[in-house]
């Protein structure tokens, strides 16, 4: 791609130049243009149903009574696509009662990949504000132990509130830098790592021109520390799901590579087939969810098992 072509694209779509170059390198020109053409309204508005409280069919009926139309999603059983009155969802009785949680498809698929089971001991390393944590607790059916950690004390109140609303009570909330967690032996760990958030540029267009969004390598340093810690906290045979809402291989495949070279882990298959990774042949089992294909925020998800 010539400099002139990049300049033309930049004129048409206001975007940080480095980010634009990265997208073209990672995704190719056609996919990049599709991504930049997208508007916030192109992202599907979705909620997840809390099966501890209600069935899918009942919540569809209740939402309808409040003037909200919800349709079942093919990609995930608990997911509903809201097709009108999205602004009413957050104040609906179903929301207040913890029957639904507004949640993007990528976040739902991350927990689906973790596959939490009743009775397990699970750690969510960066839990606040708690959308994924609640989903984990729901799949655990309030049994076993769920440790929900977040480094930011100010974000814990929203985590606690969401857990309460969803009636998740098998949870221990901790407040520490996840890289310092030493109490291990978990069956499963979710590391939804801090990232530059390039995958959110459609729903949050101001990110396209943010300077911090191109600091992939700064983020990578933190991500490598966290993923190494996550693997060390797993029991043998335990599973870690690593995810980010970044599209960059620097924050995804390269981070996972850093642990593949040091400890005995293996990638394992993620059920379902939305958006396989196409950037690196070593990562054929991971999923890169592109907004232009799935009409949700971009995500990367990989499932790793500690072998030794």
């Amino acid at each position, binding site marked *: 791609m010539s400099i002139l072509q990049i300049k033309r694209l930049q004129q048409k779509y206001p975007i940080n130049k480095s980010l634009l170059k990265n997208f073209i390198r990672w995704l190719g020109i056609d996919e990049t243009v599709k991504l930049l053409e997208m508007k916030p309204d192109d992202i599907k508005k979705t909620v997840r149903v809390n099966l501890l409280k209600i069935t899918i069919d009942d919540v569809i009926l209740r939402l309808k009574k409040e003037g909200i139309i919800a349709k079942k999603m093919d990609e995930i059983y608990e997911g509903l696509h809201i097709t009108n009155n999205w602004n009413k969802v957050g104040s609906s009785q179903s929301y*207040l*009662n913890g029957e639904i949680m507004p949640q993007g498809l990528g976040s739902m698929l991350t927990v689906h990949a973790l596959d939490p089971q009743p009775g397990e001991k699970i750690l969510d390393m960066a839990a606040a504000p708690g959308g994924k944590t609640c989903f984990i607790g729901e799949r655990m059916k309030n049994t*076993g132990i769920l*440790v929900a950690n977040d480094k930011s004390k100010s974000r814990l109140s929203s985590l*606690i509130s969401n857990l309460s609303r969803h009636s998740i*009570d*098998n949870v*221990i909330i901790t407040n520490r830098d996840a890289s310092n967690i030493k*109490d291990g032996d978990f069956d499963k760990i979710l590391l939804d790592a801090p990232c530059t958030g390039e995958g959110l540029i459609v729903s949050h267009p101001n990110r396209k021109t943010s300077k911090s969004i191109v600091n992939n390598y700064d983020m990578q340093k933190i991500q490598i520390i966290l993923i190494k810690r996550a693997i060390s906290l797993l029991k043998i045979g335990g599973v870690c799901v690593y995810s980010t809402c970044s599209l960059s291989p620097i924050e995804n495949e390269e981070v996972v590579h850093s642990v593949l070279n040091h400890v005995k882990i293996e990638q394992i298959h993620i059920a379902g087939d939305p958006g396989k990774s196409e950037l690196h042949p070593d990562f054929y089992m991971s999923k890169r969810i592109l907004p232009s294909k799935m009409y949700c925020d971009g995500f990367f998800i990989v499932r790793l098992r500690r072998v030794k």
Partner: protein
Amino acid sequence: MVVDIIQSYTGYNINLIDQYYYKFTIDKKNYITTSSSNLDTQKIKYVYSCGLQIIMIDNDISLLPGLLEVIINIEHVSITKKQSVKFSYGKKIEIKNTDGLYIVRDGFNRKIGMGELKNNILTPLIDLGWYLREGK
């Protein structure tokens, strides 16, 4: 002890389901929490809270929505959709029934709060609008 706090606050005899109860202090406020699981918090460091928060004790006592999950032996009363919206935002509503403490249910039989009825006026003690006002 938890029952005593609620009884002294409401003035009514109440019972809670038999499960695990915990106490935490967060930002100088005391919280009572509960879980159906025995959460061995001693084995984990930097514990901030656990289970569902049900009571906050500051200068005053606040009953939190989580309490609706564990409170028993309280009569239930159903209210209309219009009343539910009003009640959920912490407003008093008018209903005809005998005075007392009630778990409040909406037209879908969902627990949406707890209130004290006196002279046909139901005053919310717990309402789910708390999540919008305080639970951020």
